[in-house]
């Protein structure tokens, strides 16, 4: 399976290299992806809990905020 790619644009030389991520870059990228997914899940759970506490639906909440 191909690894994610990284594009590196050297401003000094204007050279652009696009290659597969090395192990270190891949580890950071995967950690970022995991953290974002976790944060999103946490946020969604908090939102659902709040809606439940207020006793309104998500559409009703949007209406209130519109």
């Amino acid at each position, binding site marked *: 399976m191909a690894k*994610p*790619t*990284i*594009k*590196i*644009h*050297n*401003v*000094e*030389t*204007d050279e*652009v290299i*696009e290659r597969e*991520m090395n192990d270190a*870059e891949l580890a*950071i*990228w995967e*950690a*970022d*992806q995991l*953290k*974002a*997914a976790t944060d*999103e899940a946490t946020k969604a759970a908090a939102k659902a809990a709040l809606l439940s506490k207020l006793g309104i639906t998500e559409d009703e909440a949007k209406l209130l905020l519109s």
Partner: protein
Amino acid sequence: MATTTPNFGWSVPTSTDLVKDGATAIETLGDSIDASLVDLKGGTTGQVLSKNSNTDMDFIWVTDAAGDIQGVTAGVGISGGGTSGTVTVTNDMATSMTTKGDIIVATGSSTYVRQAVGTNNQVLMADSAQADGVKYANEATATLTTTGDLLYASAANTLARRAIGTSGQVLSVSGGLPTWTTISAGALTELATGSLSGSSVSISSISGSYRNLWLVLKGFTPATNDASLNGRVNNDSSSAYTNRGSGATSDYSIGNTSWNNLSYGAKNNSESAGGICVFEFLEYASTSNNKMILKNSFTKSGSATGWNYIDGFAQWNSTSAIDSIQLFCSSGNFSSGTYVLYGVK
């Protein structure tokens, strides 16, 4: 009593020997001579007599070695020669060179000429217009006279020197030639432009000669719906970022590993033209202040029907000068979009 000859040791009879028993004496002498010359006997046509050992009169007939030099004839570049005795040959190529550094080059098949050494910092290069096909010409370093000088082509195959500019100047093009230009305060200089693709984009080796950096992303579109655009500087993935935003991201948070959650992008679809994001890195080259990043973005939401307008700021809690910027999506890859990085004086 017979005596012996000093060189060969032959037994030579004395007068008394001859009188007393002449026949025996002469026989003895003959045997002595015969014995000493026995090695001379034999051999075949063309053979030569060769010493067989260091012992006197010890010879052997041997075949004349094939390949023995019969004569020396001077060829191209050589004079002298002969067919007997001591032969002297002279290398004309060597004698043609008169000065330290001289070399010999061909002017054609089996012809040559002396190429006098050039002057300091010249190099030998091919030139078909020359009789010998080469010439000495100034090497690049001879053109450079001052620290910081640049080489450029003033015409095809012609090296020229561009003297170093003054502090703060940038290299620009005027009349098709590179020249140093003084940038007025507030002027923008485009440093890099390209497309957002792959999983991560890193803009590296950013010059520190500007006051601020301005990064403009057009048509930012992630491949994953509602993925947000994240960024880092100097590949710092530690918890060194503080984020503050408004609109969809009205949070304030510290200890983030990126300047994140600043803009959401809809997955590529016909409705979305992506968004535009503008980031300004204030006094990015400072080595005494933490770095402020102003964020403004207007992006199409993937799950909501509207567009998100987000403004805010981030701080990179480091006094190091920023020399690279990394961009990536919170989920998945970039689908499309472009980036342009400007230096602001």
